[in-house]
């Protein structure tokens, strides 16, 4: 029943992207998302899209899976598109209905915004699809570790994220089981009005909370029994190391940033006609 949620899911495969260092992938996605909002020209958009296609090809992810992730945000996309198209002003009017004006500028902005959102979601889901949750949090911990000097609990934050991620499938399974068990007793979760439906959730939520607390208790006990005492002095099984592939990907990322900056500074101001500035 949770089959359609692809955001945050890991897709096991052996590819160039899967093998990259998680730190690099996290930085890459952040850079990409910032770039997506930075870009103001068609050429820039083409560069963004080109990189995305190259990464998807190198990741060996089925395109179907990535498109399925879009399903989760199509409502958001639609609303964003409508708002931007009709409410962003502009001079070149296409048509007008009461107070709603559709302009060329507005339409352009709406298309750009929709593409940006799609790139953003796709970029983020490629990160989680190609990186196991464990190495993802490992990467986050290492990236945050310089902050430990200003007393930021990097290890604790990463540990909490690891535990949260670790328990998502468990709790989903548990939810599924409780839904089934209560349905077996004649409960129905999908009929009646709002109040009836809200009430129907009680037989689901109470056991789920009880079991979440029980699991938390058991896990805390098990961690203590193995002498867990936070990050201080703890060594790790898999030490993250940058390799040849990461160097290559880093260079690609740097080139990409360079292209976006040049596009933004040079093309957008010097040749607005070719670039199609917004």
């Amino acid at each position: 029943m949770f089959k359609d949620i692809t955001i945050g899911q890991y897709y096991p495969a052996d590819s160039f992207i899967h093998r990259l260092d998680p730190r690099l992938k996290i930085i890459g996605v952040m850079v990409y998302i910032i770039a997506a909002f930075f870009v103001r020209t068609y050429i820039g958009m083409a560069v963004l899209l080109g990189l995305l296609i190259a990464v998807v090809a190198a990741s060996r992810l089925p395109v179907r899976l990535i498109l399925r992730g879009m399903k989760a945000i199509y409502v958001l996309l639609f609303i964003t598109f409508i708002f931007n198209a009709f409410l962003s002003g502009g001079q070149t009017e296409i048509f007008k209905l009461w107070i709603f004006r559709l302009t060329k500028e507005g339409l352009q902005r709406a298309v750009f915004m929709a593409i940006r959102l799609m790139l953003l979601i796709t970029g983020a889901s490629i990160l989680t699809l190609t990186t196991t949750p464990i190495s993802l949090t490992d990467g986050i911990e290492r990236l945050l570790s310089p902050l430990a000097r200003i007393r930021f609990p990097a290890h604790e934050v990463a540990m909490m994220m690891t535990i949260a991620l670790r328990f998502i499938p468990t709790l989903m399974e548990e939810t599924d089981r409780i839904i089934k068990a209560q349905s077996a007793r004649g409960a129905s979760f999908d009929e009646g009005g709002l109040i009836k439906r809200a009430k129907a959730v009680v037989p689901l939520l109470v056991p789920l909370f009880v079991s979440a607390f029980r699991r938390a208790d058991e896990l805390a006990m098990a961690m203590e029994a193995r002498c867990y005492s936070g990050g201080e002095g703890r060594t790790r099984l898999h030490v993250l190391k940058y390799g040849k592939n990461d160097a290559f990907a880093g260079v690609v990322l740097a080139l990409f940033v360079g292209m976006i900056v040049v596009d933004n500074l040079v093309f957008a101001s010097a040749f607005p006609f070719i670039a199609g500035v917004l």
Partner: protein
Amino acid sequence: MSIILKEVSHVYSPDSPFEYAALKNVTLTIPDGQYVAIIGHTGSGKSTLIQHFNGLMKPTSGQINVQGIDLCAKKVPLKQLRRKVGLVFQYPEYQLFEETVEKDVAFGPKNMGLSQEEIKQRVLEAIELVGLDVSVLSMSPFDLSGGQKRRVAIAGVISMRPEVLVLDEPIAGLDPMGRREILSLVAAYREKSGATVILVSHNMDDVADIAQRVIVMNKGEVALDGTPQEVFSKSELMRSMGLDVPQMTLLADKLRARGMEVPEGIITEKQMLEFLLDKGVAGCSRT
């Protein structure tokens, strides 16, 4: 009326790297009133199979008919089906949610739309049947002991008076005393209502004791199907599937290896005792 499965298959997450066939061409008929045990290694498809009995899962292919209801029809009367087939999940005590035991046991009958008096009567009956005192009715289910919680959870299904009672490892994690109590309450319900009972279990001694028929699942297929005597006599095959045989079958095998002529089909303590007494084995006497 009976449960009829024809070439039922179930595939999890088809067309993905997680694709997994949990059931492959299972054909079965379980007549009314039979006491059936389903055994099998972890991941053999037992749990998937029993969830098909009350429509929680739909087969990927094949035909299922349960108590006259066709589960492959376009519109399956699920509520009616679940009234007929009661399913007790593994560790059912984790599904308790109401403030009082009474309300929790009444959840099923209430969903059936019964009258207040009828519900009250059924709750009382179910609580007595599972061997709990009526004084627990006003208690919170979370204040009970583990064994009591499980009995309350089973009462919550029995109160719906199902024609078919399916239990997924109802004795897992209980001490010998608790196991006997749960099994005897299941037997009591069966005697009283004439219901079909389908029990998933790992405990071969209990299965040998109580079941009329044993179905062995292996890798999503029915590997063996017959009386406990028939099934457990194939101890080599059972072991190759990662399953145990009853203690007494093991003992009979050992005695045979030492040269004693032990007949096939001894699977319970009682049978073994009878045999040894008839043989007049030294040290055994009828006292």
